[in-house]
């Protein structure tokens, strides 16, 4: 009985060792995972570690005949209100919004204006002076 137990222990130990050796061998069929640990990571100097970005919004006013004031609202596409203030339509406005880094558009509302502003190079712009194609009959 004692001899049987010794043999069994040796057998299990040998299998275990073989198993360990096998685990340490590279698998020719797969690329070994080589994930950089954060503590060892080399991060670009310019990276700001931010999940958001600053967007400079430029709004060109329309010189109006009489003061035209209304609520100017700029939101994320999901409707989150970022800028919301009573605004004179004739005034030029530059402002900075902080939005999620993945956001590519903003929405602008002013009276019946309901516009989508594309963000390019962290900038978005809108003008109350309309774009006119001559000959189309504006």
């Amino acid at each position: 009985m004692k001899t049987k137990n010794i043999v069994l222990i040796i057998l299990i130990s040998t299998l275990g060792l073989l198993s360990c050796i096998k685990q340490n061998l590279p698998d020719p069929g797969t690329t070994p995972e080589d994930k950089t640990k954060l503590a060892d990571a080399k991060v670009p100097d310019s990276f700001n570690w931010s999940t958001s970005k600053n967007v400079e919004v430029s709004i060109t006013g329309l010189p109006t005949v009489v003061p035209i004031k209304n609520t100017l609202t700029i939101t994320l596409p999901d409707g989150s209100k970022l800028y919301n203030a009573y605004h004179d339509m004739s005034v030029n406005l530059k402002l900075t919004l902080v939005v999620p880094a993945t956001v590519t558009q903003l929405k602008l509302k002013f009276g019946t204006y309901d516009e989508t502003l594309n963000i390019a190079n962290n900038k978005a712009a809108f003008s109350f002076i309309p774009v006119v194609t001559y000959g189309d009959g504006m």
Partner: protein
Amino acid sequence: MRMKHIYLTIILLGLSSGVFAQQLTLNAESGNSAIEIGNCWRFLDYEQYTSSGSEVISGSYSLKTQMISNSSSINDTYIKTPWMKVGSGNITFKARLGSGTDPISRGVRVSYIPYNASSPGTSFEGTLVTFYSYDFVVTNNSVVNFIVPIPAAIANSTSLYKIMVSYLGQGGNGRVLSDDYIFPGTYWSNPANSCNPLPLNVPTDTDGDGVPDTQDEYPNDPYRSHNSYYPGLSQFGSLAFEDNWPAKGDYDFNDLVVGYNFNTVTNGSGNVVELISTFMLRASGAIYNNGMAYQLDGIAPNKVSKVAGNTPGSFTMASNGAESGQTYANIVVFDNFFNLMSKPGVGIGINTERLAPYIMPQSKQVVTTFINNGVNPAGGTLTLAELNPALFNMYMIINRERGKEVHLPNRYPSSLASTGLFGTKDDTSNPATGRYYKTSNNLPWAVDIIQGFDYPIEKVSIDLGHLHFTEWAVSGGVQFPDWFMNLPGYRDASKIY
């Protein structure tokens, strides 16, 4: 020398008698017809204003139609005014035939269009009535001075009308040049409302702050009118700090975890009244008694009138509630997290170890007032654009040591930060180059997630819980910008609290 008005003007006459006579003027001197179109004038078959010396009738610009060779209807080529309350007297303007091949005929018609409230499909334009007609002598291109009496039916009416000047013609390819239109009456269109008429009655404004009740989020408060949010209404961003600065920590980013939301309240003039900041205290896996503050970068302390709701402890505040000795306004939210949330007695801190009891997060609201009940601060007012969220520089104060601040990477320290600690141990801050709070590998001591954040459990590096965090960082934010989301393969839930 004759002065031309830039675009539409309202001329006030008879002030002594209290009688206001007004007129709409169209003389093209804006140089850009889009400005008039924005102001609700309408042009059909017109070109951009001409500045050609051979075409200009007066000033620097004149109006110019497209070729009129087959315009038999008054709806083919026209100028239409905005909605107006028509006055009395004469409509006047100048026009002449431009160069071109021999025309058969050219003419002018003037009409009025009544407002019809039941006809939204025609922009509320009712049935047009033509009341003036003139035919050019086609061999003569001299300027004609038109004087057109306003019909008695619409003169000084309280109803709204548009006036339309149409140009007709057959044959040839010539155009019509015109200038110096004057229409007696009062402008009554709203460019912000699809050029529909301005309201006939003044909208209700209960608090008299100049903002109609329908647009006022505080209709009974004369000092407040609008709310703007960061990162959004009822949404919280997240700040997560390491408190071993200037030495590296364990990167579990849970030594202080705080949610934040800002509501910037403005008044009817668009100036900032107050900044309502709400902080959700969630976790502190720390031995240190850490505090939190925010600096309003570039905003002088004397722009602040008062601060309420904060717990600055032993830090020194000025009489207006902003911190003393600062170049820019600094608001200390709290000096010690553990004074606001009590440790459960198990583990080293709060809400970072699963075996310790969960403590409900605490909300702390701090109101920084700029305009106090209509009274401006000593340093003057700020517009909403001037106090934007990019200036909200939130930071941790380590263990109540006032000089030991931890900011987000490359955010400026406050005036009270101990500059002697910069560049020591693992920190490579260099004020001369604007580099702050980064290691030599550019690793931070704080991260800002613009939405909710599930932080790691105690002593587990963030990259072991959020599996794409390092790839996001090494790629400079290009890869996995959504690393903090709970998406398949994005996280090891066993490493996240």
